[in-house]
């Protein structure tokens, strides 16, 4: 006899792939992401009675994971971020062989975003949450989420536009200088 509502259990399992993808985007490391997901599952089952059936289960799980990450992040703030390209490390297929370099550029640009902006962009642009759901998960106003997403898109656009210029213009050093200038 199962301790948990089997339907709820299945829903939680179904959410795991998305939780992992979100966790990787937050933490920048597959190992840390999987630890975050594991801790999230433990919390979720430990607090399952606080979940109200009929409400948004994925958003509830994402909220737990994000809060766990936040509390851990505060502790680790001084550590050098793991920038070994977590997404690239997980890549099993290249979506388009011809745009491999584009893809690398994108991943690096994404890493440069402030965490607030990156998480907002991922929640809305990849996880498929509405602005309202993302605001719930990040515990901020809807307007704040919109603003973070817009700033993230603008910043990525700037970074990728510079990369595009690099394709037919300045050499790598010049590009690096341009990018460095952008960051000031």
């Amino acid at each position: 006899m199962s301790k948990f509502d089997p339907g709820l259990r299945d829903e939680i399992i179904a959410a795991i792939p998305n939780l992992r993808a979100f966790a990787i985007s937050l933490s920048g490391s597959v190992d840390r992401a999987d630890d975050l997901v594991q801790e999230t599952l433990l919390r979720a089952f430990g607090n399952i009675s606080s979940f109200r059936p009929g409400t948004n289960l994925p958003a509830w799980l994402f909220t737990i994971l994000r809060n766990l990450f936040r509390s851990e992040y505060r502790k680790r703030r001084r550590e050098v971020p793991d920038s070994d390209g977590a997404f690239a490390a997980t890549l099993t297929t290249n979506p388009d062989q011809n745009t491999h370099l584009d893809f690398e550029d994108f991943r690096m640009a994404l890493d440069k975003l402030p965490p607030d902006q990156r998480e907002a962009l991922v929640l809305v642009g990849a996880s498929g949450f509405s602005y309202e759901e993302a605001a719930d998960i990040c515990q901020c106003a809807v307007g704040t989420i919109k603003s973070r997403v817009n700033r993230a898109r603008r910043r990525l656009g700037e970074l990728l536009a510079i990369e595009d210029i690099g394709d037919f213009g300045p050499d790598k050093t010049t590009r690096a200088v341009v990018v460095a200038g952008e960051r000031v």
Partner: protein
Amino acid sequence: MSLGGSMSGKEKMNQEQSGGASASAESLTGEHMSEASGSTLGSDIQAKIGQHLRAMYDDVVRQGVPDRFLDLLAKLDQPKAGDGPDGEGGRS
């Protein structure tokens, strides 16, 4: 903050859940993309950003559920002595 720290975040979670309802009214009037699709950025670059973001994300999603999580859930779901605290224990 509350959820990360301890198990005492139940009320907080419920608050957050209910917060969404009031926010949704704004979405009906707000233009989601009004700023993002502004004139400063090429729409091709914005499209590329969306594609790359989803490609990265979906690549992880396609990996499915790693065994370690299925094992974990199986363990959590196993009623056995010592599971007591959550009230459903006691079976052995």
